[in-house]
């Protein structure tokens, strides 16, 4: 059974069908790319997947379970975590606290024991700190654990967002343009990190990206979206050599 199955997904905003008849199957362990020109509806697909928007039609199944139309919070608990195209960190809080907020649902400790500082509070804090530092070290951020996250350089902010999403212990990780605004070195590091979490955490990843070096470098399969519809789908090499795709990106000659 596929980890993620999307069938005939559509959403209509007034007269605009932003995503129309979208189908996608992602197997467990896949590193899947979603590409397409600006305004094609890629982020809308992510917003539909995470419950930010409710689809007009269609079914989304995660691990066989229907999650269509659920709230963002429920969907996260089912195992979908995401990053955002325009970075959304908890800016005023430290790097460590950002990850600890991601860990929120992995640990439980009542508000009363927090306020009264009962032993369970200290136990949970210690466990959260250890787990958070472990995740930060994957992304080479453990040295900046105490930095206020808004003060991190751009590339590291993107990495922190991935670390925070990973903290929710997802089955499926959605990355919305993870390499946007990164220089070639940062992109290279990011590719290594993505491969690392995929191998070591057995993570299934669906990503949106414009950086073709990253897409052709790590994605195994691609879906190309244009004007809200699927242009083509398949293994990366085949898709990128498809003349229709070249035309969608570069226009007719």
């Amino acid at each position: 059974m596929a980890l993620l199955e999307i069938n005939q997904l559509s959403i209509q905003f007034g007269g605009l069908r932003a995503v129309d008849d979208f189908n996608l199957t992602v197997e467990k362990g896949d590193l899947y790319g979603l590409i397409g020109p600006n305004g094609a509806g890629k982020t809308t697909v992510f917003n539909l997947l995470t419950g930010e928007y409710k689809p007009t039609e269609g079914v989304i199944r995660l691990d066989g379970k229907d999650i269509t139309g659920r709230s963002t919070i429920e969907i996260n608990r089912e195992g979908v975590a995401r990053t955002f195209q325009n970075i959304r960190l908890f800016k005023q809080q430290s790097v460590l606290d950002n990850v600890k907020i991601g860990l929120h649902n992995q640990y439980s400790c009542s508000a009363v024991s927090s306020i009264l500082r009962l032993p369970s509070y200290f136990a949970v804090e210690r466990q959260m700190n250890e787990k958070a530092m472990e995740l930060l070290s994957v992304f080479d951020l453990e040295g900046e654990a105490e930095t206020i996250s808004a003060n991190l350089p751009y590339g590291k902010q993107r990495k922190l967002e991935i670390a925070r999403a990973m903290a929710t212990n997802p089955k499926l990780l959605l990355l919305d343009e993870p390499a946007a605004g990164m220089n070639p070195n940062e992109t290279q590091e990011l590719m290594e990190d993505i491969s690392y979490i995929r191998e070591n955490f057995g993570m299934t990843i669906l990503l949106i990206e414009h950086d073709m070096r990253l897409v052709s470098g790590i994605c195994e399969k691609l879906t190309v979206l244009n004007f809200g519809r699927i242009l083509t789908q398949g293994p990366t090499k085949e898709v990128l050599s498809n003349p229709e795709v070249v035309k969608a990106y570069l226009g007719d000659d």
Partner: protein
Amino acid sequence: MKNKMTSMSKASRDNLWTILMLIIAFAVVQGFRMGGLVNSHMDGMLVPICVYATMAVSLNLVVGILGELSLGHAGFMCVGAFASAFFSKLFENSMGVFPRFLLAILIGGAVAGLFGFLIGIPVLRLNGDYLAIVTLAFGEIIKNLINVLYVGRDSNGLHFSIKDQASLGLAEDGEMIIAGPQGITGTPFNSNFVVGFLILLISTIVVLNLINSREGRAIMAIRDNRIAAGSVGIPITKYKMFAFTLSAVIAGCAGALYAHNLSSLIATPARFGYNMSILFLVFVVLGGIGSTRGAIIAAVILTLIPEVLRFMSDYRMLIYAIVLIVMMIVNWNPTSRAFIRAHIPGKLSGGKKAAGGGEEGR
């Protein structure tokens, strides 16, 4: 790992400073009082100062930590004041002073918390400034409601009316408890500086401990970025309700303290009106939004100034305005903030949490 340990103690060290500051201030004032250095006028100011500082702590939880605006916090204080005074009048002769006053404070907090919860249910599901509008209305409504409420007691039990005293139909042995616009008179005079200080101290510890916990981080995550908080599975409505209700409980306790310091408790605009709610907001903003310690300091200074400067008669409000402006500059001007951070490490500059909230906008 080592880095983590020192930092953890940094946040708690900062909180410890706040607690220590309160205790030292309390000890100094108590010392002056024992030495007979505090005149009766200033002595009478001590309980109101504790009340207002507690209100500042309470409102800071909503405005600074949760990032929602409440313009009716005096309303919660009013509810707490009347609920607790009502209870005290009811059991004035049937309970000992200590258990009765303790229960009165808890009841004040609980009733205000209930109101906070009920208001929160429809409003906190929404985003935006709805909370400000609804709390503003709540503050005004509750005040007017209490002004038409008549409650009396006789051998047959309690009588309620929202018309007038006569319609209660009290028997000969009857006694008024809440007399509409005359409010509650003769509430036992139980509040004193020690109790006031304890309420302030406990409220402060509760809020500071909350901030540095799993729940507190979730609440601040909602403030910093609601969409991202939802994306990592933080139950947004639940934590908004929690913070708002807790804030209302603290405001209710402050109200109970306030009520037991007055011979007659009347829901006048001067005591529980819109202007008071705004005054509490001024404490929070001038203290540096999100800083519990700052809010307390601002509340103390701004409550004291008009009294200390009483000899200047009308000119004192001029000084008050100047102090407001100076505090605003000191707390919010980037240059002065940098100066404070560089020269007063840890103590007054406040920790990472203290600087939070409004700095980057929300």
